[in-house]
C-alpha cells in the first residue's frame, strides 16, 4: 500500500500541540500502595496452586524417599537385633566363648 503524501497542515498542527497534564504528587505512592495490596492478596493455597506440579513432584519424592529410608532402617535394625540375640544365645551355650568371657 503506497504511503500518502504528507499533509503540511497536519504536520504543523502536530508541531504546535503541547500536552500539559496536571501534576499528581501522590502518583508514585499510589503505585506502590497498589503493588503491596496485590502482593498481600496472594494466599498460601494460591502460591501452592501456582506451582502445583512442582510441589506435587517434590512431595512424592520426599514422602517416597522418607518411607523407603524408614523401612530400610527398620529392616537393618531387625537384622542387627537378630544377630545380637543369636550371638548372645550362642555365647550362653558355647563353652569356648564362656571360657574366654568368664573371669
Amino acid at each position: 500500500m503506497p504511503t500518502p503524501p504528507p499533509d503540511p497542515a497536519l504536520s504543523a498542527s502536530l508541531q504546535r500541540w503541547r500536552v500539559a497534564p496536571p501534576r499528581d504528587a501522590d502518583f508514585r505512592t499510589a503505585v506502590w500502595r497498589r503493588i503491596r495490596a496485590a502482593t498481600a492478596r496472594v494466599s498460601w493455597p494460591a502460591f501452592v496452586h501456582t506451582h502445583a506440579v512442582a510441589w506435587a513432584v517434590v512431595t512424592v519424592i520426599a514422602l517416597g524417599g522418607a518411607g523407603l529410608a524408614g523401612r530400610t532402617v527398620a529392616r537393618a535394625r531387625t537384622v542387627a537385633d537378630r544377630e545380637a540375640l543369636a550371638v548372645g544365645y550362642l555365647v550362653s551355650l558355647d563353652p569356648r566363648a564362656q571360657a574366654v568371657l568368664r573371669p
Partner: protein
Amino acid sequence: MKFLLLTLGLVAAAAGAVGGACYCLGGDPALRSAAARHDAMAWLRSDFHLTDAQAGAIGKLHAAYAPACDEHCRLVREAIQARDALRSARADDAAALAAAEQKVRELHATCEAALNEQVRSVAALMSPEDGRRYLALLLPMIAGYGHAGAPDLHLHAP
C-alpha cells in the same frame, strides 16, 4: 519466600511422619523387645514361632546341657591358662607348647561338636521350616567362632 519456607516445612514434616511410620511398621516389635531385654528365649519364641510346649522342651534341653557346658568351659579355660603359662614362661620347650596348643584345639573341637549337637537337637523340636532357619543362622556362627574370635563382653560378634 515466606510461602516457600512454609511449604518446604510442611513437606519435611510429612516426610518425617511417613519415615517414622514406615520405621515403626517395618520392624519386628517382638524381636526389638527381646533384643532390648537380651532375652534369648523370647527371641526364639517370636522368631521361630515356638508354641509353649516347644519353648518348654527347648528350655529343658538347655538346662540339661548347662552342666556339660560348664564342664567344657572349665576344661577349655584350664587348657588355655596352661598354654598361656607356657607361652609367657618363654621356655624353650616347643614340644610342650605344641602339646598344649593341641589340647586347646581338641577341646575346642569337642565343644564345637557338642554345641552343634545341641543346636540340632533344639532345631528338631521346631517346625521343619523354622528348624532350617535356626540352623542356617547358628551353624555358620558356630563354625566361624575359631576364625573370627570370641565376641566381646557386650556380646557383639567380631
